[in-house]
């Protein structure tokens, strides 16, 4: 099924769920309304013609003004793929978790939370995964400033601290 | 002790004039020191051999540097290092038990040497229940291991200790039962007598008499004895890929080397028992070879078995706990019972 068909099906099933559809790029993507996101995902997984049984990855992206979460989906049976994007505000970004649809999303979402601070609602275990639990800030945001110390330990290389060379 | 006492009386004429208890104490001390030296030497050579054998089996050379020729002094250097290491006792350990465990393990291993016949005359303690003595004294090892595992106050050590108890206690049964097969044939528990019963050619060794029952018993004994001394594929108590180092996780330096010494001593003890009971002890395989000293034959056979133990270690993976128990209770034990029945019937008929 092509991206266009997938887009049409979703738009017909869920009103104003797709905010933008773009298939002029290398990999066509759909921008999904965060409010409808969970339903769309459920539809994509469970519908016979869609059958997206494999979630490749969940990536956080910092677009400057907004944050985004990008989902790459693939169907092993139908051999088609689609990219879903959810655009979230910088302050208090929230989107519903799909960890109960694809269990692999559990760790992926934790990673996005860890590095971008996107909160996934109804996630079973939303904690930091790669960084220490008491790390402050979300390092992959473009406006992240590296702290000078972590628990009182200087973390910057002397070259970067500027006090010695 | 009589023959040895006699031997020393001949060697040192003045000794016979002393009261028996003093003479016996002196001679006993000499024998103990000799045994200890032997164990230490055997461990040194055994560890070196194990390294060389494993090296060559793995397409490498093993130690090659220390001492010159094929790294012969490697284990000596290691021993010196171990002895010089700081003695660490974990803060939260049960200190008296922690300190006592390696000594107990080693003492048990050392005591087992008392009843092993090295030649016609040399047997430190010629007990008429020698086999029973060895079996019972060597099961003391398990108490030491559990003690060490428990006292370390480390979960991995605890696992190792518990596994060791389950394993060694279970495997005592096939060990004893398979030895009973040979005892049935020999009709005695006296180690020296068992050896003397097998005099003659290689065909009069227990392992080849009443073929194939004692042969299978020997096989069972060998497998079960591997478990007794915690060697691969039954090295679960120290299973390094699961339990870090098992019961010896918290031990280091001198105390750890006692465990190591005990392991190699035990390896030799079980090999010596197998030799004595099944392979004709110090007897030469053929009449015309009797001019070679008995101790050579004894050592040769025992070391051959030790070599097979090492060979297996560097070939096999490790069993799981439940499979270990399965092997003991559902394979080795029934088989050895069946062997006892067959051999008894054969003897009766």
């Amino acid at each position, binding site marked *: 099924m092509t991206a266009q068909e997938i887009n049409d099906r979703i738009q017909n099933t869920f009103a104003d769920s797709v905010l933008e559809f773009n298939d002029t790029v290398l990999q066509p993507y759909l921008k999904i309304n965060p409010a409808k996101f969970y339903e769309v995902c459920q539809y994509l997984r*469970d519908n016979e013609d869609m059958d997206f*049984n494999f979630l*490749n990855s969940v990536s956080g992206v910092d677009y400057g003004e907004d944050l985004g979460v990008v989902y*790459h989906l693939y169907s092993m049976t139908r051999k088609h793929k689609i990219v879903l994007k959810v655009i979230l505000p910088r302050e208090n970004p929230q989107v519903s978790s799909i960890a109960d649809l694809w*269990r692999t999303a559990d760790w992926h979402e934790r990673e996005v939370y860890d590095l971008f601070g996107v909160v996934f609602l109804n996630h079973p275990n939303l904690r930091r*995964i790669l960084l220490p639990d008491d790390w402050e800030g979300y390092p992959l945001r473009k406006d992240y400033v590296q702290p000078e110390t972590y628990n009182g330990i200087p973390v910057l290389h002397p070259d970067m601290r500027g006090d010695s060379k | 002790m009589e023959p040895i006492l006699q031997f020393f009386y001949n060697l040192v004429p003045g000794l016979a004039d002393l009261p028996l208890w003093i003479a016996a104490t002196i001679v006993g001390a000499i024998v103990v020191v000799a045994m200890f030296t032997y164990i230490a030497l055997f461990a040194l050579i055994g560890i070196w051999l194990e390294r060389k054998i494993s090296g060559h*089996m793995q*397409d490498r050379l093993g130690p090659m540097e220390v001492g010159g020729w094929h790294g012969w002094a490697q284990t000596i250097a290691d021993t010196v290092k171990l002895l010089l290491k700081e003695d660490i006792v974990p803060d939260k350990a049960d200190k008296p038990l922690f300190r006592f465990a390696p000594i107990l393990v080693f003492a048990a291993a050392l005591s087992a040497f008392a009843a092993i016949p090295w030649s016609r005359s040399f047997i430190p303690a010629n007990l008429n229940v020698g086999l029973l003595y060895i079996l019972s004294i060597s099961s003391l090892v398990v108490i030491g291991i559990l003690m060490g595992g428990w006292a370390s106050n480390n979960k991995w050590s605890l696992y190792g200790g518990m596994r060791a108890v389950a394993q060694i206690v279970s495997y005592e049964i096939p060990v004893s039962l398979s030895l009973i097969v040979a005892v049935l044939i020999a009709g005695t528990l006296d180690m020296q007598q068992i050896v003397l019963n097998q005099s003659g050619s290689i065909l009069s060794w227990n392992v080849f008499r009443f073929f194939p029952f004692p042969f299978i018993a020997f096989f069972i004994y060998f497998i079960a004895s591997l478990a007794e001394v915690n060697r691969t594929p039954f090295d679960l108590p120290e299973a390094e890929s699961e*339990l870090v180092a098992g019961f010896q996780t918290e031990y280091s330096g001198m105390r750890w080397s006692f465990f190591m010494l005990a392991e190699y001593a035990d390896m030799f003890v079980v090999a010596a028992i197998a030799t004595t009971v099944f392979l004709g002890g110090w007897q030469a395989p053929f009449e015309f070879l009797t001019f070679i000293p008995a101790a050579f034959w004894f050592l040769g056979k025992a070391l051959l078995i030790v070599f097979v133990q090492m060979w297996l270690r560097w070939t096999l993976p490790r069993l799981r*706990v439940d499979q270990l128990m399965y092997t003991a209770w559902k394979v080795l034990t029934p088989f050895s019972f069946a062997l006892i029945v067959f051999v008894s019937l054969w003897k009766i008929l």
Partner: protein
Amino acid sequence: MKKDNLPAAQFEVEVPDTLKTEEMTLNMGPQHPSTHGVLRVVLKTDGEIIKSAEPVIGYLHRCFEKHAENVTWHQVIPFTDRLDYIASMNNNLGYVIGLERMMNLQVNERAEYLRVIVSELNRIASHLIALGTYGLDIGAFTPFLYVFRDRERILDLFEEICGARLLYNYIWVGGVAYDAPQGWRDKVLQFIDYFVPKIKEYNDILTYNKIFIDRTAKVGVIPADVAINYGLSGPSLRGSGVEFDLRKDDPYSIYDRFDFNVCTGKGQMGTVGDTWDRYWVRVAEMYESAKIVRQAAEQLPEGDAKETVPRNIKVPAGEYYMRTETPRGELGYYIISDGGKTPNRVKVRSPAYCNLSVLPAIAPGVMVADMVAIIGSLDIVLGEVDR
């Protein structure tokens, strides 16, 4: 979850209510001989039986994604080496192909063939390590050194072609860093001739050993639908009987020109999807990789492998999710370019990360020793899990 039908726990012990028992919390790692790096698994155990397992990762986090945003397009390649340091060639390949597709760059034929040869050789090397360390986990030490012996030969080949033995930085945008030296192709063919019979030796000493089979068969079973749902890929997915290989299903480079099979677990020794199947898929894949290497080396065209390497890498604004089949599974690079000199974002979807996430689901009910077998069979590389 609707599609969850994990098998019943393997070992269940009925404890009478009168007996007071306690669960023990056991920290397996971060320093543990068989967690393949600095993985920590918090185990709740009831004696030898595991009640729950929770992997704790991040001990080897080196901020790859943050690094990638601060260096030029080309300078990311040495960093990709360090993700999965056992299969660096395959790591380079995914990133580079992703960039080439964004740039719409055609690569010289000879370079394509060299890429396939080195990545398949690296796949063999990686599977060899997986085999050896798996033997080590199960308690057999010797196979470990046999596989290292043969892996060394592959590393020698790599050293000859690119100078490095572990972190190659060999596959470049538009081609490869160095052309193959004189006689290298023959050495590759010689190696394949030498290597294929050696696999029998591993099978003799390890694969078909009864103790090994007992330890691995019917342990850590992952049914196919669970595997897919947890995002498993590579040999871990194929071990569950799913015939899915990106080299066939979503071909990249020139893999569509070669004749090879996708190996799947068939449950020869127990259940489909047990640890033995995952192990066996790796053994079988070594045969297939050897087949590919032989074909590629025989067809290797003449030419200049560096012909199409651009002097300056200009990536047009856009984004691409490139996935390739590494020895561990689907390695995805989600690359976003804003047309500048440095990547805007490089997200790595690492296969080991997803494969490891299935651990809590299959751990309950197995023994501590099985835990080691399961972790080993997933063949994780912590450098890639933590990035």
